């Protein structure tokens, strides 16, 4: 398995309407769907989100990562997808599938704290690696944009 392990990193603009309730329910739906798909496909990683963007790290077998990325590309809840990295890796950086709010809004942070806790979202993992740190910074910038 280690031979074909890849990491894919992207970030994209959020197209979900700026309606708080709709945004929260969409995030909930994405979480439910990702949990099922990613567990099945041995994909781990992290999805960072805020009102401005999604930023995601996918780790797993190449074919599964490609299939997951294709599903993501067909999702019209976001656009302007920038693929930042697609590289073979020797080990996973994220032990499970984690989703967490990342941004400056305290209200949003509180609202999504539950999701972060339930998925084991650990912001400190985002600083260990250059591309992860870059992703985190992009996400915070995009929220402000």
């Amino acid at each position, binding site marked *: 398995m280690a031979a074909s392990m*890849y990491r894919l990193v992207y970030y994209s603009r959020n197209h979900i309407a700026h309606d708080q309730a709709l945004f929260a329910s969409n995030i909930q739906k994405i979480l439910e769907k990702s949990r099922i798909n990613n567990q099945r496909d041995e994909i781990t990683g992290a999805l960072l989100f805020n009102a401005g963007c999604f930023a995601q790290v996918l780790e797993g077998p190449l074919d599964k990562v490609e299939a997951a990325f294709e599903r993501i*590309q*067909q999702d019209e809840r976001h*656009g302007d*997808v920038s693929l930042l990295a*697609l590289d073979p890796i020797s080990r996973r950086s994220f032990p499970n599938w984690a989703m967490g709010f990342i941004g400056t809004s305290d209200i949003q942070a509180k609202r999504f704290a539950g999701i972060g806790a339930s998925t084991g979202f650990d912001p400190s993992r985002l600083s260990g690696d250059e591309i992860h740190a870059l992703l985190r910074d992009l996400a915070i910038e995009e929220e402000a944009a």
Partner: protein
Amino acid sequence: MNVATSFPHITEAHSAGIPSAEQILESLPRSVLVVGSEGVVTYANRASMVSLAAVVGSEMRDLFPGCVLSLATMTGAPSCLLISRDGEKFDAGIAVLGAGQFLIDLRPSLDARTADMQGDLDELTGLTKRNGLLKHLSSALCSGPASSIAVHCLDLDRFKMINDTLGHAVGDLLLKKVADRLTAACHKDDIVARLGGDEFVVLQRNVEEGTAETLASRIVDLIGRTYVIHGHTINIGASVGVAIGANALQDCDLLRNGDLALYEAKKAGRGRYRMFESGMDALLFARREMEIDLRRALALKQFKLNYQPFINVTTNRVDGFEALLRWEHPVKGNIPPLSFISLAEENGLIVKIGEWVMRTACIEAMSWPGEMIVAVNVSPLQFKADTLLDTVATALKRSGLPAHRLEIEITEGALLDDTDNVIQTLNSLRALGVKISMDDFGTGYSSLSYLQKFPFNKIKIDRSFVAGDDADSEAILRSIASLGTSLGMAITAEGVETAEQLARIRGERCTHVQGYFTGRPMGTDQIPVFLARNDLDERI
């Protein structure tokens, strides 16, 4: 037994072993209805209850929402297409029962059954193929208002490059993903078809104000998003042409209009969609007409060469003439090269036309006095055709023109692609003894590396720098001239129209001038007279 006429009397048939007409009708696997002239169902067999939920008292317009024709008019046709609320299609046979009653025999539509059969599906993507699309299109056109359907014709931008660089296996996987994305972008009632290669068509149904534009822009967005295949990151784009059914009488018109719009989308720069507009067909029609005329022009001898002199400013003598193509159209008169060369390059006719020019110029130059040079323009497409060297060698041999009297003018465009091959051809031409010049220098990339890669005999500076009397134009003119001179190349300033311009050129190290002031283009027969005229010396 004639079911249609005996049907109302279902009581007669309980004789030994023979089922009654009613039993037969009730166990018939397909739907049969009897309907009054006002469209209310008076009898529905069991199959129709199951498949259409029809009961006595149901109304035709509820069972078949798209049905607008009256039963009386439908009777005349051998069969007509009816579509149920669930979208199921039937070829309906209608018979008059008398007393204002009609029998409707509903056979599952042949179109519906065959359109999705294996043979009609594309093996690679599982999408409908051309035949299936046409069937869906014609049934959509005859079952509802034409304005409710739209076709989206699309081409992938840069697909060939992916096939060439990453191989057909990756190309095929890419086409599959494109098919998936198209299907994801469309509504389930829409039909996505692959006509071959990277050519797809979407038949959109239930179109309302603005929804065709929305779908087209969604297609452009989704198809243009990055793909990841076997670890390769792939970026392609989609160009889309959209035609809405209104005003289109036939399915082929609609597809043609979609293609016209697609052509415009590609022309406008790809990665975008264009809606069909009625002017587009006129534009393309005119272009098509010109193409037909252009294909005949050679055989009908409508081309002619004019020659414009270029003067050596150091000796004040005419060194030679540039051959300029003229098309004398029998109806439209003189058509300037700017209006037809790009078309000839697009359809490849330029190669044949170029051969004619080369041959004719060499022959005509043989009749000129002295050692006059003839300069002939060669299109970048002629380099790609791989026959240029042969064409030139043959033209020289047949005419008897010494190679040093032929000068070939190329533009930077020829050197853009496949530079090594082009340089090789230029070297072979040079080996024949032919001169090579760089035309229109200063307008394109003006890349100095081209001047370094091949030792041109001459650089022709574009007319815009001669016409401009500002300090910038003058500085550019001077720099190119001094650059060329240092490289040992002759320099021609083009478009000289006034004595003042000529005087300025003389001061800028240009070796040659060409323009209206020193001589307009003329027919080959006027050349001896022109050369004999003594006022030339006075002017220059």
